[in-house]
């Protein structure tokens, strides 16, 4: 099996993102089909349901079902938001979609707006990718100019306008209600749910939030049919998926493949293991997903169900590959530091718990671990899980639980011997500045 590109299709060569090139690739045909009245709102939602498309932002919620939660007749504005706040360590696919194929997101969002009756949309773009934000703004201007956005789209009765909102450095704004708060010009602190955004969202109005890649899948589904999309994947796991592969492979990068592709094939596409070293563990769905040991991972296929059976999550599709030169305690220490830094501080279990996790992992890594530290870590994670407003608490706890579960011996070695199991020179070799053959 090889790469199968629907979203990143025909972008080889100079990867041109301009409107006229997108149209040459069949772009905006789906939107035309929709606004010309060939498909009703129900038809669109039905087609998306048939495709078995699941949210690409992390939680994997069925998109068609989510869309059907929006109230049909609501007096006043309904909103649409695209989550391009990609900040989950390991994830870098949405940036590629926005850089190389921004119109597919615009078209996908416009179709979604048509299906749900939204009059306005925002694309929330991660702070650190300002250059991508500027490009998206340019793409929006092109679409507006061509009558593909704004009043009476393509001469129909349907009006929808879309704007870009630029973040400024806060991982938590990827959480959908924090994202809405942030668009409202506030601190990005998640809201209590319920009410869910479909009833009380942006400015208190019904709102649907989807990930960039989710929207980018829509034009294909509408143009070629939900069934066709589904068949690229497997039941309950429709379509293709873009995996961002980072870490110890020869060719880190984004790979769009059919759902259900065996992990070893994906690894091979990414050039295999760097320096011929052995695979130790993989975080298959972004830093919040539990780590999976090499042997289990090599038996997985890349889809929601298989990864979940292996005790982890497909999440955002960020595959972090670690070889035998990696000190697992040090790896976890860096992740725990991240969650500690990024907790928004609203809930005590998360605010205090992430600090505890970081400090305990830090002291184990630095030879000051105590015999009961592993129990302590397990008890702190148990006190965070399920007791917080948003899922960042769980996201901080799951890596800790899984690293301790699968690599407990290595943690114990640090505590007993006050040093790493992986010799420092081996770690040094494995973490050197690497510039792959692709650049």
């Amino acid at each position, binding site marked *: 099996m090889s790469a199968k590109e629907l979203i990143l299709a025909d972008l080889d060569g100079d990867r041109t993102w301009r409107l006229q090139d997108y149209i040459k690739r069949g772009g905006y045909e789906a939107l035309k089909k929709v606004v010309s009245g060939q498909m009703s709102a129900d038809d669109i939602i039905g087609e998306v349901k048939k495709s078995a498309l699941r949210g690409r932002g992390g939680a994997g919620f069925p998109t068609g079902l989510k869309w059907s939660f929006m109230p049909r007749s609501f007096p006043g504005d309904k909103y649409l938001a695209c989550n391009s706040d990609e900040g989950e360590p390991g994830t*870098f696919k949405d940036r590629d979609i926005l850089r190389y194929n921004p119109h597919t997101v615009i078209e996908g969002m416009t179709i979604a707006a048509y299906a749900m009756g939204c009059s306005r949309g925002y694309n929330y773009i991660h702070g650190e990718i300002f250059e991508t934000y500027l490009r998206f703004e340019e793409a929006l201007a092109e679409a507006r100019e061509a009558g593909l956005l704004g009043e009476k789209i393509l001469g129909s009765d349907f009006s929808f306008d879309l704007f870009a909102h630029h973040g400024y450095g806060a991982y938590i704004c990827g959480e959908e209600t924090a994202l809405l708060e942030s668009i409202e*010009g506030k601190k990005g602190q998640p809201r209590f749910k319920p009410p869910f955004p479909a009833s009380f969202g942006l400015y208190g109005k019904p709102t649907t939030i989807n990930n960039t890649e989710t929207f980018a899948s829509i034009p294909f589904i509408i143009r070629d049919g939900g069934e066709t999309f589904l068949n690229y994947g497997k039941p309950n796991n429709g379509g293709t998926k873009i995996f961002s592969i980072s870490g110890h492979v020869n060719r880190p990068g984004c790979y769009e493949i059919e759902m259900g592709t065996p992990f070893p094939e994906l690894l091979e596409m990414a050039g295999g293991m760097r320096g011929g070293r052995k695979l130790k563990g993989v975080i298959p769905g972004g830093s919040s997903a539990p780590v999976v040991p090499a042997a289990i991972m090599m038996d997985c296929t890349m889809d929601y169900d298989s990864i979940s059976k292996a005790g982890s999550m497909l999440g955002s599709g960020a595959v972090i590959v670690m070889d035998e030169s990696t000190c697992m305690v040090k790896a976890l220490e860096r992740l725990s530091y991240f969650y500690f830094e990024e907790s928004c501080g609203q809930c005590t279990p998360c605010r205090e718990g992430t600090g505890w996790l970081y400090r305990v992992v830090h002291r184990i890594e630095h030879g000051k671990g105590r015999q009961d530290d592993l129990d302590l870590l397990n008890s702190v994670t148990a006190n965070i899980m399920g007791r917080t407003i948003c899922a960042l608490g769980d996201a901080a706890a799951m890596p800790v639980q899984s690293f301790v579960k699968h690599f407990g011996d290595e943690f114990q070695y640090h505590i007993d011997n006050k040093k790493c199991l992986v010799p420092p020179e081996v770690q040094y070799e494995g973490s050197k*500045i690497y510039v792959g053959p692709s650049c």
Partner: protein
Amino acid sequence: MLSQESLSRIDRELEKYPAEQKKSATMSALRIAQEELGWLSDETIAFVADYLGLTAIEVFEVASFYNMYDLAPVGRHKITVCTNLPCALSGGVHAAEYVKQKLGIDFNETTPDGKFTLKEGECMGACGDAPVLLVNNHHMCSWMTPEKIDQMLADLDK
């Protein structure tokens, strides 16, 4: 306090939101103010608040929540290196060490001549391009080998 150009840029941002939701432009207004003035002083924050019809504390809350705003003066060029795990597996930490050594400063420090400030960054959504760093919040540099870091610092120093 802000130039006419910055003000018209803020006005363009305001057009993105419903007329009664001026607060939504807070983030971009602060970004634009910081681009012009280098950092966000209490006076700048009060000015932005006034311009948007908000209280200073509302705007301060935003300025202090998001990492890319600077509430204290920084060097002429702020360099933020990502050291999160995916980058660290491909040299992110080594690249940061190299910049530290070249500039003779640690994270959160500024060179004595006021030219460079160094920060440690979190995932920038570009892990496949590691090592990555940001220059002045808005320009991303990928695959930063020591040679490319040397070149970048030399270009910025001109």
